[in-house]
């Protein structure tokens, strides 16, 4: 059993590279999107707030797999065709944006009105108060939940299997279909995911403890 593991490991690690690359791309697009959505959800305009909240509720309410299929099979009909890799990045980023917006919003609300008032009394108002007083404090309150979300994103990049991006799950599956050792190779892939997730979750817990 284990001699196969050594033989398969290089291919799986290659797939893991793609999984990690997907995760990084999703973080780079999804978190800024979440920040913008979180800010807009606290905007003074009622219309903006309603639209943003509808967007967030919809993307939090639909399975990620449905979003991916909609983008991958549905968009070409409207003239937009994306590669499978891009589809996964876009679908996950929309999803992460919706989920993380709540964390950003809570972080912003967490910085009390007192801070804004204190800034205003020092003559710091508007844009300056936001970028130099509110945002730095808001960002300090949220790394823990955001890192946990990133671990979830890493796990759910396995959905890329459904549209044939050769990340770790797809790689394991195709090794399985060639060798008929599905159990063996999928367990190995599962353990690689688990070890990475468990170790990062422990690190996140440690960091959260330090920040508190």
């Amino acid at each position, binding site marked *: 059993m284990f001699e196969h593991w050594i033989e398969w490991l290089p291919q799986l690690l290659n797939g893991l590279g793609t999984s990690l690359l997907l995760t990084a791309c999703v973080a780079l697009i999804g978190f800024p999107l979440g920040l913008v959505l979180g800010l807009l959800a606290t905007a003074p305009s009622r219309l903006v707030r309603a639209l943003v909240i509808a967007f967030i509720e919809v993307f939090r309410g639909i399975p990620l797999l449905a979003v991916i299929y909609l983008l991958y099979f*549905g968009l070409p009909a409207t003239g937009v065709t994306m590669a499978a890799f891009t589809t996964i990045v876009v679908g996950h980023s929309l999803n992460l944006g919706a989920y993380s917006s709540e964390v950003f919003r809570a972080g912003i609300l967490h910085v009390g009105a007192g801070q804004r008032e204190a800034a205003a009394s020092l003559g710091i108002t508007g844009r300056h108060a936001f970028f130099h007083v509110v945002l730095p404090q808001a960002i300090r309150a949220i790394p823990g939940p955001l890192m946990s979300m990133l671990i979830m994103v890493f796990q759910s990049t396995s959905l890329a299997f459904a549209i044939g991006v050769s990340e770790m799950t797809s790689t394991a599956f195709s090794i399985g279909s060639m060798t008929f050792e599905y159990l063996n190779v999928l367990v190995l892939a599962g353990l690689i995911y688990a070890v990475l997730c468990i170790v990062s979750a422990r690190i996140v817990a440690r960091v959260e403890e330090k920040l508190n």
Partner: protein
Amino acid sequence: MSDFSFASILQTLSAGLGITILMTVVSFTVGTMLAVPLALMRTSKLRILRAPAVAVIDISRGIPPLVWLLIIYFGISPIVPLEPLPAGLIGLSIISAGYLAENFRAGIDNVHLGQKEAAAALGLTPSNQFWRIIAPQALNISIPPSASYAVALLKDTAIASIIGVADIIFLAQNEVSRGGSAVLVFSVAALLYLLVGIPLSYFSRFVDGVVRSKVVTA
């Protein structure tokens, strides 16, 4: 000639809605039944009980849901024959057991220490301290996160379509392969999830509000 109107697609996909709800309810129930003993072991003072519980919870949460389903359907069904639906139910139950056990553990750990001390001071036996004082409060604390997990689980069941369970997404893919417009078909599928998920998440927020006013946490 097939009919791909909104109404006809809605009707076709509604057949999968039952399977989606069935998977959510069954795996949440089985998950809860497995999670209670796991959480008790996890919070035990005895290492011999705690260590295996930590391992089971970590593994169940550490392996991505899709990989779990592939392991069970493609890995185990050659040894023990399994149809897609039972394979999906087993996988989703294992996953929810891990998440719910962690919720229950957090519930037990977050009951204020003073409660246990007060119970001990009143002369309650250790077993009564736990079952009559700690457990009811721990349950209250863990209900809101478990309710929001039910919403997450509803959406997670969609991955069972990949191993061939005839849920909403699976039927949607069928409709598309028969010639339905993918935009329309998947939008209807999304609508069905929202129809169930949004009331469920409002309910979970309502429960959160009710419970929050009742407990003292650590």
